[in-house]
């Protein structure tokens, strides 16, 4: 493959990167899955637009979290990066090398440097192979070392992930869920990869085991200088592990920001709703919090709504009097502050999550004291006081289209 033709999207996506070359760049990545019809002759009748124009840059050594609800295309992004699929459009550039259409030995060479950890530690390990065989397989495929060296390396790897090296000749069913996920991690580490795509690596594990695997991944990142793309639906976990977070909705990125920024100052109405919906294990805080309850379900990716994909459920659009622009024009991901990009025509109307969530519910100001304490007052391009905003309706009774604020009655 030739050097990338420096597509404009890549340059734009580089954004915060500065001069250093990023490890991975996605530019306007599209992955459509065809829907066919017919028995003898299959006709192409439509597409599931799993990934519909995603631009994302991942720097060496950082952890990028990709969050979204089921069906938003986050796993497809991960799989497309590893070229388990051939993208419908756009570019994947790994360390300056275009791999969008790479094949054969070029692709194998790149894949050696990108590995994946899967969600289900029961389904992702071959039940007929021993733990050592599973961890050794990547080494064999890529012809690394002699048999003796491989056996030594497997023992090292098992020890690195916190398993007894003597367990190597056991089969997956003899391990617990957490231990199996450790085997999956050891397999991913075998070839000294640069990038690890972790697709919901802890969702199938028990609560007390999840923290063990998160800590393991964090330790390994420090030891081996790994770069992670951490795909998950759980914002608490993603916020904990990620340096930057990309929020995805129906095949598109709606917001990218640092973990801290996203939590303190979400700018996309979807991110605000998502953050408000995550329960916090503290009854004192929960009784004060208000939820933005989104109406309805995520639309089908085979027939996404026109314009902004989120407009059918958007609480902000309802408050602004349902502007036509949301239906007619697809919002581009635009940078509102350094490293903080959002795809919303009216992101200026969104200001700081906790306060606005309280505003929407028309709550007494007393409860917003803590919210104010954690909302930064630094001026950014998006700072808009809620009261004088034309079209916005602070502290009023809900109109029928508005989301129903969740009130917690405590007696």
């Amino acid at each position: 493959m030739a050097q990338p033709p420096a597509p404009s999207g890549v340059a734009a996506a580089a954004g915060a990167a500065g001069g250093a070359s990023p490890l991975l760049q996605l530019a306007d990545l599209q992955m459509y899955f065809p829907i066919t019809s017919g028995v003898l002759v299959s006709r192409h009748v439509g597409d599931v637009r799993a990934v519909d124009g995603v631009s994302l840059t991942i720097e060496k050594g950082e952890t990028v979290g990709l969050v979204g609800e089921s069906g938003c295309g986050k796993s497809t992004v991960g799989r497309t990066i590893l070229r388990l699929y051939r993208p419908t459009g756009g570019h994947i550039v790994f360390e300056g090398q275009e791999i969008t259409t790479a094949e054969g030995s070029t692709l194998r060479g790149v894949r050696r440097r990108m590995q994946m950890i899967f969600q289900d530690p029961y389904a992702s390990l071959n039940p007929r192979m021993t733990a050592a065989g599973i961890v050794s397989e990547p080494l064999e495929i890529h012809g690394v070392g002699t048999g003796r060296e491989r056996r030594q390396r497997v023992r090292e790897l098992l020890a690195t992930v916190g398993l007894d090296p003597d367990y190597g000749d056991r089969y997956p069913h003899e391990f617990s869920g957490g231990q199996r996920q450790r085997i999956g991690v050891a397999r991913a580490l075998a070839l000294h990869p640069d990038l690890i795509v972790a697709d919901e690596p802890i969702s199938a594990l028990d609560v007390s085991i999840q923290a063990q695997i998160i800590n393991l991944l964090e330790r390994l990142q420090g030891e081996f200088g790994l770069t992670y793309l951490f795909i998950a639906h759980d914002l608490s976990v993603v916020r904990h592990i990620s340096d930057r977070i990309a929020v995805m909705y129906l095949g598109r990125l709606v917001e990218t920001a640092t973990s801290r920024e996203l939590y303190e100052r979400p700018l996309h109405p979807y991110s605000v709703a998502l953050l408000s919906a995550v329960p916090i294990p503290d009854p004192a805080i929960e009784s004060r919090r208000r939820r933005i309850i989104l109406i309805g379900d995520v639309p089908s990716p085979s027939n996404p709504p026109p314009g902004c994909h989120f407009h059918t459920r958007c609480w902000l659009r309802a408050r602004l009097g349902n502007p036509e622009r949301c239906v007619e024009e697809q919002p581009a991901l635009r940078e509102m502050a350094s490293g903080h990009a959002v795809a919303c025509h009216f992101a200026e109307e969104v200001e700081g999550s906790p306060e606005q969530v309280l505003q929407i519910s028309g709550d007494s100001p007393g409860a917003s004291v803590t919210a104010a304490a954690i909302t930064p007052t630094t001026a950014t391009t998006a700072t808009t006081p809620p009261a004088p905003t034309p079209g916005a309706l602070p502290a009023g009774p809900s109109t029928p289209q508005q989301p129903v604020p969740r009130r917690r009655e405590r007696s």
Partner: protein
Amino acid sequence: MHLLSVNNLLVRFRTHDESVFAVNGVSLDLDEGETLGLVGESGCGKSVTNLAVMQLLPKPAGKIEGGEVVFQGRDLLSLDESEMRELRGKEIAMIFQDPMTSLNPVLTIEEQMVETIRAHRRVSKPEARARTLELLHTVGIPQPEARLRNFPHQFSGGMRQRVMIAMALALEPKLLIADEPTTALDVTIQAQVLDLLQRLTTERGTAVILITHDLGVVAGMTKRVNVMYAGFVVEAASTADLFARPRHPYTVGLLHSMPRLDAQPGEPLIPIEGVPPDLRRAPVGCPFAPRCAWRVEACWTAMPPLDPIEATQVIVTTGPNATHRIACWNPVTPEEAIAARPLRAGFEPAAPPTEAVS
């Protein structure tokens, strides 16, 4: 009199060559209109306890081997199957994690809801249908008239769970057991369903047992919590008390091992080391002892009783002033609960007795 009293419940699953010790003496009380959270990891016995209350344990393996279940003064364990049938749905209803497996896939929503209502109430089909429509409307199903003739697979996960809630509340039960009702749902849909559940049960004064592994859901939805581990209740308190002053090492461990959305950046997680015990072995001592940093010698040999944390004349088991009780020989102090480790000088977790080493 409590609405529900479970006393020293023992449930075992027996197969041809081994036993699973699923519930090892669980006691809990519930008043009318109360919300109780049952928290624990998979296999801790929280679901089995409730299946035993409903007498829906898988047969023939699951057996209630001891204890009693008293609901509105009636001993449920002495009822026969037809009496239990009369009670299920009408007095105690249940919703499950996966609505797809609890709805009948070959019947329309109308058919199964009308059937449920007519099984317990002497009403005509049109009356039952009208009631069904009203219920679907209450739980927020758009265009209920059109949706009546749909099959379960034509609904999304969130909508299916709404249908389940509508069916569960159709007969205005006194008690609703919700077993991980939102675990299979996305977080924005979870917020919708929890909101609905809370609104409807508060309006009708329905008592709720909410089974979940998610401490966040418990914090927002319940007034009282029982924490379970390996078939035992290890800590019981009002929700506010439990989160503010956790005293059992397992509860403290759970709270520290979950990343919180509002945590300070860079705050490390403190996992609970080790794995839950193998329930195929009869419990000896405290089941949490092998993973516990606070364990003392007694923990290896004797299961501590669920006792109040402070000496008290009267133990209150229900209501907002429920006595804070734990089953622990060496409770965590408030300072230790924050640090998530024992702070006493020179304290070392007791080594296992030599004969009990597995």
